[in-house]
């Protein structure tokens, strides 16, 4: 240290500072250059796809199976579009959005970004997504169902294109029902109480380690439960929170009651499963649960994992006085990064994924039942695999129950899932009461969306 002080006095420091300064200027210049193409996305997008080779990045979440078929589809796209190279990247759902936020903030986000739930709004309203109207020349959205398309439309802008329609239900393992000597429920009449009774009975009649149901607490299920109880889900149309402390407390009482009766597994197992989101690790996938709430497009993965002929049923309580509040929606949307240097290439890729039979042949219903009528017809003509047939049938069945009560959460609502999981753990481990957890949920979600 003393040497440095000395050197500054004798003039060493000035020269050192000059060198450092030059280095800084160089580094800053490098940064500036890196950002340049991103600053003017519209300018070179049109020319680059024609003029030379462009490389775009495409990101999604999911498991290895999804990656395999998606990469195959991308290969077909590249063969058909010789000037475009697509680099693909995927991680599991838990890590996906953390990573996305980091890359978007760093100006290093993928060009084509898969989104879901309230995320398109989180990003779109903050200016991170491309208005797809700007690339309508290359991306035809007129072919897609208006209902599904509306999931990517907000603030008067089409930000996302649905990957396919999806719905929610109870995935059931009939083999466990049979082994327990319990009849399958009647989905046209079963209630939340029936669900609890059935699950408890199955747990009692099967060996230790097999349960009637996996812990049902999730933002989706809570939304349905609240709708069935009060006529409104978590949120109202105006983006405000509808859930009250009492109603949420009732859910926590219900959920912890399931655990206490043995219908669902002990808290440690439920808590362990929250960090393991792949179908293979779930109780259903391991063949250890008779019932579990889930998205219809995951049926195939659950079937593969469990090796059982799993079926889908409508959620309990959906025939009550407040209606079903069921939805059929794009659980995933393809969006394009507002900062992309190659909007044309990105739009062409999205168009290929949702509008081409080649992509449909490979991807099938992995991201939901396609929203393009022509593609659906094409898949049906090809002869559907049994699992896909079950999904198609379930979707058309549920479509009769859709009453428009479902509301997508406002900006900030993506936090609610984490808040719910944590409070649920606190209730299950007996650290807090359902009443306190209900109040905490309302307080925290209100803060998150305000």
């Amino acid at each position, binding site marked *: 240290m003393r*040497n440095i002080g000395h050197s500054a006095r004798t003039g060493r420091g000035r020269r050192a500072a000059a060198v450092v300064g030059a280095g800084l200027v160089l580094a800053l210049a490098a940064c500036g250059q890196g950002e340049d193409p991103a600053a003017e996305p519209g300018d070179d997008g049109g020319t680059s796809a024609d003029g030379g080779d462009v490389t775009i990045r495409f990101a999604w979440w999911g498991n290895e199976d999804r990656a395999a078929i998606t990469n195959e589809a991308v290969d077909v796209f590249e063969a058909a579009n010789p000037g475009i190279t697509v680099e693909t990247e995927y991680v599991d759902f838990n890590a996906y959005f953390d990573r996305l936020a980091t890359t978007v903030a760093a100006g290093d986000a993928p060009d084509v970004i898969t989104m879901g739930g309230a995320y398109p709004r989180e990003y779109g309203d903050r200016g991170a997504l491309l208005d797809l109207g700007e690339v309508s020349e290359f991306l035809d959205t007129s072919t897609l169902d208006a209902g599904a398309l509306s999931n990517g439309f907000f603030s008067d802008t089409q930000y996302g294109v649905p990957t396919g329609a999806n719905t929610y239900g109870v995935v059931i393992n009939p083999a466990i029902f049979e082994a327990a000597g319990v009849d399958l429920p009647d989905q046209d009449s079963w209630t939340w109480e029936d669900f609890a009774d059935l699950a408890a009975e199955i747990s009692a009649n099967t060996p230790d380690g097999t349960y009637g149901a996996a812990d049902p607490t999730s933002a989706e299920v809570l939304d349905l439960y609240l709708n069935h109880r009060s006529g409104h889900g978590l949120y109202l149309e105006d983006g405000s929170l509808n859930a009250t402390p009492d109603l949420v407390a009732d859910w926590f009482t219900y959920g912890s009651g399931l655990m206490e009766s043995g219908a669902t597994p002990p808290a440690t197992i439920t808590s*362990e499963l929250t960090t393991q989101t792949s179908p293979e690790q779930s109780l259903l996938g391991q063949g250890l649960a008779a019932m579990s709430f889930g998205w219809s497009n995951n049926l195939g993965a659950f079937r593969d994992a469990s090796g059982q002929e799993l079926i889908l049923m409508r959620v309990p309580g959906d025939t009550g006085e407040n209606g079903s509040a069921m939805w059929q929606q794009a659980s995933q949307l393809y969006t394009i990064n507002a900062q992309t240097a190659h909007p044309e290439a990105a739009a062409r890729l999205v168009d290929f994924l949702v509008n081409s039979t080649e992509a449909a042949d490979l991807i099938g219903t992995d991201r939901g039942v396609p929203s393009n009528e022509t593609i659906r017809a094409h898949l049906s003509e090809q002869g559907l695999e049994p699992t896909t047939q079950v999904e198609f049938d379930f979707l058309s069945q549920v479509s009769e129950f859709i009453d428009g009560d479902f509301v997508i959460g406002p900006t900030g609502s993506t936090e609610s899932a984490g808040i719910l999981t944590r409070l649920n753990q606190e209730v299950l481990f007996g650290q807090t009461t359902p009443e306190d957890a209900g109040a905490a949920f309302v307080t925290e979600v209100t803060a998150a969306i305000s």
Partner: protein
Amino acid sequence: MSALQELSGLRREPDRGRRGRQARHGRQSRSAAQKGDNRAAAFFLAPWFIGLFVITAGPLVASLYLSFTDYNLLQDPNWTGWENYARMLTDERLLNSLGVTFSYVLISVPLQLAAALLLAIVLDRGLRALAIYRSVFYLPSLLGGSVAIAILWRQVFGTNGLVNAFLGIFGVEGQGWVSHPDYALGTLMVLNVWTFGAPMVIFLAGLRQIPETYYEAAAIDGASRARRFRSITLPLLTPIIFFNLVLQLIGAFQSFTQAFVVSGGTGGPADSTMFYTLYLYQRGFGAFDMGYASAMAWLLLVIIAGMTAVNFLASKYWVFYGD
């Protein structure tokens, strides 16, 4: 820092020699020689300075600014003054994360150092394959912060993990240790203690510095082994203990990977492994609340600086630097 000190340390000796020569050759050649030196020094120091300003100082200043703003990562920040800092006072989850972090640091660091010292003393006895043992015990320090080990940990302490299989031999029915709020933090502490290799190697070096003659003299005077440890080893080792303590404390406050991987990024179950850094990360990158996260980062800096200052002040009373 260390690179700089090394450089200046290396230069000291040649400098002296040159000064002698320069005195004989007069002023002119002295400044010419120094010019060449200066240029070389500036050249070699440049990468470090660029690193300091671009990678460390720049973001540091930026985060200080951001800590006074509402910044959602995607749009320009808005100045909000002290609001983020005021919010921290009433943020129960932040207070909880401080509690989790402090108990992790204050329990696992002393245990880790004790384990390191114990092993160092055992290894210092001149075992034949010392190099091998040293490497084996050092290995966890290299791996401990890695994602792979954290994943392994999750499996070992899981419901169907190795620990429960072992307990099963004795007829004890275990549970999911990482998924129970009462034990999850404990498993992370065990992980930290397990990485005792790095301080152990430093202790070993310190033990080697203690002159053998002290022990011989004490043995002749009839001092027992325990007495020799208490009156010779421990006092002469206090500077090393102090060094390790400061280093490990600072490191432990910033632990992130283990909790992130073991809890799947949630800090769960029920926030029991919600390290301060993990909460900071969640606010910044999960909740688009980067202004608040920046304020949290500065609070952490103040806490670590404060703890280190306390450490140095307290060191006057227990660290013995000899003569």
